[in-house]
């Protein structure tokens, strides 16, 4: 699992696959490897609580990073911060910048157009990437982002090409190309697809990989979450199947899921050359520590 030598990681996957939990575990593992790590969520203008924040004991996140563990900061990307940063960077000082930042109409417009809203998120990310630590070097060596549902994730990775089609010249185009230099470079950035060892999620994750490739986002690999442990040898399994056919008991579903998981993993391996990191199914209230341990190991060595 090539993780620690890249700057940006987008954690993607359909709802219900445990994406946010995996994001939190990846962030903790990266920090434990000694990397100055920033874990981000994309701030939702509709409000509500933060799912990622709750895993670290924060109901709400803000744009200012908070330290949640040694080497680990937590924050969200917030479009208006990106808008302001962008306007400050392109406008000469004086009255022009003042009237831009004061104009409610302009702010409203930038937030009401989804692409410009995402441009704000994108620019805020760029600001974080270019931030310098007090002692030199990047403020955060590894930045991990919990990406929202598939459609939104692809909207963000596809944003530069979409907007460059509309606005091929000028400062927005320049900022987008600067972002692309990071995001589309497999040495610097990777998208990870979190999925489950079941038929439909595997199909959907393969579709998501195609979508990411279409937006020129490099893929780091797949994270096969909640993989059930198979404790039976072949004889035991045959005896058990014969027994269960006559007498249904609890545990039957577990057997079905073990078979499905194996089938799904085989199909995934046959369909992609990308690294696949398998995470165990954990029957506890807080699975983050166990997943962190597994990912800490995977980051240290190869995995497939």
């Amino acid at each position: 699992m090539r993780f620690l030598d890249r700057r940006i990681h987008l954690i993607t996957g359909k709802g219900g696959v445990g994406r946010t939990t995996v994001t939190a575990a990846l962030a903790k593992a990266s920090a434990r490897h000694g990397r100055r790590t920033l874990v981000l969520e994309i701030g939702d203008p509709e409000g509500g609580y933060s799912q990622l924040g709750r895993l670290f004991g924060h109901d709400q996140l803000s744009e200012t990073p908070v330290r949640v563990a040694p080497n680990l900061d937590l924050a969200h990307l917030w479009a208006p911060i990106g808008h302001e940063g962008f306007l400050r960077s392109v406008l000469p000082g004086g009255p022009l910048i003042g009237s831009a930042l004061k104009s409610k109409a302009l702010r409203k417009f930038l937030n009401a157009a989804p692409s410009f809203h995402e441009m704000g998120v994108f620019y805020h990310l760029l600001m974080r990437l270019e931030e310098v630590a007090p002692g030199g070097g990047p403020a955060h060596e590894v930045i991990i982002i919990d990406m929202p549902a598939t459609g939104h994730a692809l909207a963000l990775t596809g944003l530069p090409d979409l907007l460059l089609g509309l606005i091929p010249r000028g400062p927005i185009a320049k900022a987008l190309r600067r972002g692309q230099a990071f995001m589309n470079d497999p040495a610097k950035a990777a998208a990870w697809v979190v999925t489950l060892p079941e038929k439909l999620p595997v199909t959907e994750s393969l579709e998501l990989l195609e979508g990411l490739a279409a937006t020129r986002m490099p893929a780091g690999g797949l994270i096969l979450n909640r993989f059930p442990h198979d404790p039976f040898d072949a004889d035991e399994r045959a005896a058990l199947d014969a027994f269960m056919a006559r007498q249904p008991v609890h545990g039957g579903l577990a057997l079905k899921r073990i078979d499905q998981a194996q089938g799904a993993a085989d199909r995934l391996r046959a369909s992609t050359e990308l690294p696949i990191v398998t995470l165990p199914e954990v029957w506890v209230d807080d699975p983050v520590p166990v997943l962190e341990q597994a990912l800490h190991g995977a980051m240290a060595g190869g995995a497939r």
Partner: protein
Amino acid sequence: MSAAPASPGALLQRCKVIVCCGAGGVGKTTVSASLALAAARQGKRVLVVTIDPSKRLAEALGVDRNPPEPVALHPERLAALGIAAPGSLSAWMLDPQRVSDEVVHAQSRTPEEAARLLANPIYRNVSAMVAGMQEYTAVEAMHSFVLDDRYDLVVLDTPPSRNALRFLDAPERVGAFLDKRIFNLFVPGEGSVIRRVASKMLEKVMDVAFGEDTRRDLQVFFELFSQILGHLNTNQHDMQGFFRSEAVSFLLVTSPDREAVQEAFFFEKKTREELGLDLGGYVLNRSLAWSAELPMPAAVRRPADASPALASALHRLAPLAQAEAQLARTHADLARELRQRAGTGGFAWVLPRLPDGAGALEALSGLADALIDPDTRPEA
């Protein structure tokens, strides 16, 4: 409120529109399709409108190629699914750009204006440029489907996002673009000297930030599109009362996952407190609650000739069975909690995990049966 007992079956009889909401990955589209199938079996002419179906379900419904009009299932397929006349099942996939293009054709003052707007690069990406286009066009489509007497019932599957219910907000809030101030940003009208100086200043800002070409594209777009938004706005207003009437019901779909349940509660608060809507009930999908009463392996008498392999297998099965039984109990508790939350007028309806690879309509048959008769325990 109607006096009919709260059940999915009664809901299908009473409603003209059923809206399914919930987090991503909980099986909203599956539940929507099952509801539609169940209603069609009761003799209703049903349309299911989806936003983002899985490939497999889209193929099963015949909408995988994004057809302009709803697609009716072939009579042979209907018969195979147990749907007899007058019942029928059609499906349609929402495409905001297509709906918007139709409105532009119908509502522009002249064909030249329509052509000019359709060719405008900003308009060509209208969904990416105008917040709320998905909501606007969903309501616009619902408006025409509800008036359309080809359908007795429309089942709407919403996108998996927190603002999925935004189409129920006042139109002014859906389309922040309708804001007069934004409009004036690009198409400045008359005003005081101070306002004109201020707008000249902003024009300079726009030219620097966006470039002159794009600023002009935006100007043309705003001039021509404001009228189209005005039309969408009128229908949006018309539909607000309808969505709050007894003909419409909202279902919250969730899986037993903690995160999904939290999202469902978030939606409940939104529908009830903020939007003042009547909640039909909860659908707990992929639940193990049905199997809560299965025996544990240790409690079952083993055959006298049990092999050593079976003995050790049963020994190893014990912790898995333990975890599964615990999960089944948790799911049953959750079902009870949802029933309580749904209140007297609502219901919480528990669906099992479907066999792997569900998504084809045939696989949804069991769910559709369970819908009508809540005592039917579908095969898990």
